[in-house]
């Protein structure tokens, strides 16, 4: 039996390329595949017959190609039209490993491309040929000769999020540990000696630093040690918790029976993990230790600080800085279909305390610069449709200059206040509150901001436009297939009111696929092309691509044309994304790495 597929093209855009098809493929001879199909819309331009659906469905011969502003499902045009077209092809998998040759007949007449008085495109042939070579699994190179006149090339990169592209783990193992001898002295006098505590904290910090874990502070009592750490290396937080537990087990006096490890994210103490030392010693190196240790480990919302008696390790004030090249690629912007270039970004954050900081980020265009495209023709306040103007020119841009205060009111409540130049296009003041217990699969948040639009061509200038914007947010980890739902309702930058709905699938290894749409009281006409705001995003952990530990990641976004309806402030340090990965559900999904 042949393999059969049904397809839809441009079903959510402006409809210019819309078409539907039914296609079948079969290997008719070893290495030779034949493909044949029938199509509607763009596929019904040449080699056509009457649409058979017309004979059984009234109005099926009419295909309305006026899609307005687009951006909505065009289901009322699917499989309609007077004609259907036939297309087909053949693929030969050559004896050269990975090399294939393709030949196809296209039924697309490219009529739209020839309608403009300035149109020069006139396909000389309906037959296209191509050669593809699979360089390795996941990477294919292609070259094509199309329309009888054009050549093209492509590189296709593919991968399975569940299967890293690196074959094996070359990372270092955890610190081997022994259980305490039964006769080890269990005195607690050391815990009342400040100098001994300081030396112990320093030694711990140095050992953890070698693991890629930063010790912020510690507190010692005779039978319990509290440490506040930041995972700077591991893609999976339980692995950092496990490594820290091993360091404590190897280095703490025998009287210490309880390890309490508090995880920092972006300087916020999020979750405290409590490990019973004797239980840990009875599990290390034994079979099925992952499941057993999860059952015996305690989790709770971290307190805002360790309180009196804590030994500070990280000294404040301190300065973090980085300089990084930032290449960019922007596709399919109207009038400028492909744009790429390079910026040099510099960021510095000065911490007065762990909770109070100031950040400056500048961006210097280096290559691929472009001129000011001029103001947009939006019917709404141009809060996003002028985005290209803010990236134009060769002058250095001030991407961010803020003062931030981030803290916890209790174990479950997080707070953030930010003021200054919050993002490239807006300056102002704002605050955010999040309630997210560690043991709960959902959380509630709210933010409110007063902002003024920045001038696109100066570092510090402000426009007249100002607005109060903010949202109430519901976050829910559904527990099903790693799906996470988020609803934000409130006022957007253009003063419009509405809601954003986001659904994201998060894989335990750090991959994430998300999609969102926003509906506000802005009309489709006022919104412009796309009708309403929507988009998808992909987040890829670098650990997936390299055979050693790193918690760096990259996020790719595919969004609508930047329009003004449904636009939100681009705040870097929103609370929920910061604390999300340290709740009970997500830690459990990765807990097996505790022993790695």
């Amino acid at each position, binding site marked *: 039996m042949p393999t059969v597929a049904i397809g839809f093209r441009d079903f959510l855009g402006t409809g210019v390329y819309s078409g539907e098809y039914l296609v079948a493929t079969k290997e008719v001879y070893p290495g030779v595949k034949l493909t044949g199909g029938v199509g509607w819309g763009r596929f019904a331009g040449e080699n056509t017959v009457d649409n058979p659906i017309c004979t059984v469905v009234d109005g099926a011969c009419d295909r309305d190609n006026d899609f307005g502003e687009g951006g909505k499902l065009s289901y009322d045009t699917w499989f309609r039209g007077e004609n259907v077209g036939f297309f087909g092809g053949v693929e030969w998998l050559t004896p050269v490993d990975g090399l294939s040759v393709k030949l196809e007949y296209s039924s697309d007449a490219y009529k739209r491309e020839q309608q403009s008085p300035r149109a020069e495109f006139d396909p000389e042939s309906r037959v296209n040929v191509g050669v593809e070579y699979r360089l390795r699994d996941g990477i294919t190179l292609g070259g094509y000769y199309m329309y009888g006149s054009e050549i093209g090339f492509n590189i296709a990169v593919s991968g399975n999020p569940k299967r890293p592209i690196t074959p094996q783990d070359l990372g270092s193992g955890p610190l081997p540990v022994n259980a305490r001898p039964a006769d080890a002295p269990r005195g607690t006098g050391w815990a009342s000696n400040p100098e001994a505590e300081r030396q112990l904290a320093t030694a711990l910090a140095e050992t953890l630093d070698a693991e890629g874990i930063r010790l912020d502070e510690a507190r010692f009592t005779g039978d319990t040690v509290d440490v506040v750490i930041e995972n700077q290396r591991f893609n999976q937080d339980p692995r950092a918790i496990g490594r820290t537990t091993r360091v404590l087990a190897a280095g703490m006096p025998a009287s210490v029976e309880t390890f309490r490890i508090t995880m920092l994210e972006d300087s916020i103490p999020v979750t405290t993990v409590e490990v019973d030392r004797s239980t840990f010693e009875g599990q290390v*190196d034994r*079979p099925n230790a992952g499941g057993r240790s999860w059952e015996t480990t305690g989790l709770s919302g971290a307190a805002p600080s360790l309180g009196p008696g804590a030994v500070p390790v990280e000294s404040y004030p301190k300065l973090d800085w980085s300089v990084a090249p930032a290449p960019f690629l*922007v596709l399919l912007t109207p009038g400028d279909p492909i744009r790429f270039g390079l910026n040099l970004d510099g960021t510095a954050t000065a911490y007065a305390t762990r909770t109070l900081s100031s950040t400056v980020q500048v961006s210097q265009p280096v290559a691929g610069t472009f001129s000011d495209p001029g103001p947009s023709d939006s019917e709404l306040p141009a809060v996003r449709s002028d985005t290209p103007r803010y990236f134009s020119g060769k002058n250095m841009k001030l991407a961010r200059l803020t003062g931030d205060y981030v803290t916890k009111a209790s174990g479950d409540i997080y707070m953030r206040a930010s003021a200054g130049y919050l993002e490239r296009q807006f300056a102002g003041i704002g605050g955010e509150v999040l309630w997210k217990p560690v043991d709960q699969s959902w959380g509630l948040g709210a933010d409110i901001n007063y902002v003024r639009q920045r001038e696109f061509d100066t570092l510090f200038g402000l426009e007249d436009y100002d607005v109060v914007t903010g949202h109430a947010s519901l976050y829910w980890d559904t527990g099903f297939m790693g799906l996470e739902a988020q609803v934000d309702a409130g006022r957007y930058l253009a003063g419009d009111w509405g809601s954003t709905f986001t659904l994201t699938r998060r894989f335990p290894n750090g991959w994430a696929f998300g999609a969102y749409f926003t509906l506000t009281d802005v009309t489709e006409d006022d919104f412009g092309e796309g009708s309403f705001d929507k988009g998808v995003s992909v987040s890829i952990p670098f650990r997936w691509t390299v055979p050693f530990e790193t918690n760096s990641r990259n996020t790719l976004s*595919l*969004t609508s044309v930047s329009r003004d309806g449904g636009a939100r402030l681009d705040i870097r340090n929103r609370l929920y994304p910061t604390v999300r990965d340290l709740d009970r559900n997500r830690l459990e999904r990765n807990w097996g790495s505790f022993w790695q």
Partner: protein
Amino acid sequence: MRRALAFGWLFLLAACSNQGLNPIVAGAIDEVNPLGGAEAPAGPTRTITRDAITRADTATIRARLLEDETPTYLFGAAENGGFVTYASGLRQTLTLRGAQITASRGLGHDLLSAVSSDPDPLKRAIPPTSWPQGVTRSYEFPAWAAQGRIETFACRFEFGPVRDIEILDVHHRGIEVTEVLLERRAQF
């Protein structure tokens, strides 16, 4: 539609910060040389000899991946309830119970734990004449959960000829025994 894509990570390799190089570059360097340049032993790499091991008086094993030619020496570092963990200078670790490998880190795909049916001559030495016909082994591999993924294999023992082998200048004579999977093909 407009696609804003973020960008080849190769460019990011050029980044730096007050914490040093880009984390990816730093990570790679750490893995290759976890001791750091300052603490790395000077001069040519020493060859491990029988005399050196004898002088060190430390349990030592030699291990290598199938695709590697050079073996790694691992030294006894911890013992917990009969499970002995050996660690290399690069902090690769192997945990053994008797002669049975029950866990590995940094040597190919990590093995979290392993159990086997009794009697298992790998867990506890048994004269070859008393070996059982076979053994069942269960291996725990990393999974996206607290408990790892368990794979179980039934194996039978095949006795071969008497062989002489030499391990670091010491000759040993023994019977070659092969474990053959009964139900499916696998390699680990």
